[in-house]
């Protein structure tokens, strides 16, 4: 299963990187190949990295409350470059205390395949990706042992 390539990063002007730093490590431990774009990544850079690494999934993180504005046009940027990765978004997705279900709906409409609240922990993310790509745990343990 080595070859399941994943891109992670925080989008827009967001500089919160603790989450993706740990996510990067957790995904690597789970056997994924990870490209971490770091903080304040423009949407185009996500699309370019997805093409370059032939990414199966792109994981966008946003903590600071402007996710919606920042992600506008992200999926179009993928399409322009002929990329069609599975896309997840996670973090703190709304200014203030609005309801998460409403937030999920909005991001689904924007094209995200998975919308995660800040309650999601690393295992949830790894689980979701495994399910997505039909990877079972033993296979990834093997990959990890080999790496």
């Amino acid at each position, binding site marked *: 299963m080595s070859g399941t390539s994943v891109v992670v990063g925080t989008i827009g*002007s967001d500089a919160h990187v*603790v989450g993706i730093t740990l996510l990067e490590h957790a995904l690597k431990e789970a056997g994924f190949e990870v490209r971490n774009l770091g*903080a304040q990544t423009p949407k185009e850079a996500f699309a370019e990295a997805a093409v370059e690494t032939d990414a199966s999934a792109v994981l966008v993180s946003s903590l600071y*409350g402007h996710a919606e504005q920042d992600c506008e046009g992200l999926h179009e940027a993928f399409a322009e470059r002929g990329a069609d990765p599975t896309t997840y978004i996670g973090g703190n997705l709304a200014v203030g*205390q609005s309801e998460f279900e409403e937030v999920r709906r909005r991001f689904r409409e924007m094209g995200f395949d998975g919308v995660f609240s*800040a309650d999601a922990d690393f295992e949830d993310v790894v689980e979701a990706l495994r399910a997505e790509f039909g990877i079972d745990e033993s296979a990834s343990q093997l990959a990890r042992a080999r790496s």
Partner: protein
Amino acid sequence: MVEDRRLTDAELDRLDERVWTDAPDEARVDFEDAVAFHESLPAHKQFADVLEGADGVLTQPRAGVARLEEQIELLRTLTEEGGADLLPTTIDSYTRDNEYEKAQAGLEQSRETGESELNGFPAVNHGVEGCRSLIEAVDAPVQVRHGTPDARLLAAVTLAGGFQSFEGGPITYNLPYTSKYELAETIEYWQYVDRLCGAYTERGVRINREPFGPLTGTLVPPSIAIAICIVEGLLAATQGVRSVTLGYGQVGNIVQDVAAIRAMERLGPEYLPDAVTVTTVFHQWMGGFPRDEARASGVIALGSATAAIVEPDKIITKSPQEARGVPTAEANATGLRTTDQVLQMLAEQSIDLEGVDREQELIERSVRSLLEAVFEAGDGDVACGVVRAFERGLLDVPFPPSEAAAGDALPARDDDGRVRLLKFGDLAVDEETKEIHRARLEDRAATEDRSPSFRMVADDVSAISDGRLVGRPGDD
């Protein structure tokens, strides 16, 4: 190469002229007029005096919303319902990125919807007049809190607008907050900011400056925070700043937190020029918060108890809604009241903890060694030394979004919950100190029967959400 040299009056004037041209619809404000405004403020709104003259720990929340009236109401709620001693005005993210047009759009949208569509107060767009209305409308000293790497225009507007304290600095508002700036750049920008504060200071308006000690808020070793704050204090002092508040974010181990504030209280005045009045600020837990408000209150109270023991000059409070997003005014006031209750109940008690001296010693030794490395790297020039020290990893911060820091220093907690370094990278601390860190982390590894690794770090970061300080295996 950038130099730690005081800008001349002519340089300040030239820079000032240029900075103001970026102001959306505002002409450069007359300095004399600004000084006059500050002088018109009553004594209880003079930030530096209030802070430096207080006995007991002053409380200050964070708070910023888009519209002026809403910000006034928010600040009033925080004094009336929360008893805040010092007020903040937290600036929105677009302004921090110098995107004043986006900020304007957000402000206008907020005016339409009646809700805050920005995560802070767009002070530049509100302009000098807006700021002055705010300062006049509230009844306590107000500080600008932000996270802006290039804060020149923000400083020009808000200081002319009557704010008397300005948070941040070239390192602490660069490395944790952005990936887009070289250190040499931000140092230059902040020389202007500090020189401007110095100019006010020379006219008797002592603008308070506060390096942002918590940095990335996550497992930051005390010695790193303190060394960086002192460096920023030195840079500010060069430009004529005379009131500096060194900052530090709670790591959660009481002995280590007390030792850190003590170390800061000792080393600050030692390294900064005598002309500078040094104060300290303790930030309640700056890392990821538990989402549950009951648990969050526990974290807030623990920070307050720590502050009550060591008595910094002020404490920055959090709200029980911290993990969810920008808190409501009521939640913010709630955090203030929980804090006040604990501070007051402990105010009369003298509490001395064993082991503080030893930890303080350890912290101080590392701070000295880090500062020495900066001085050496710059051949005695702090500005140049900072740039080189970070380039070489002699100074470093954990989890930097910025490439201006190596990010090789990897912290983890020891068995007692104190923050130690698992990896030092090229950090300028001596072998003996490293040995102590290593030994402590090996003790923990033995307790947990696993080797010290990134897994530990990840567990430590998440631990607080599970109600713990140290992330033990099998906890969740």
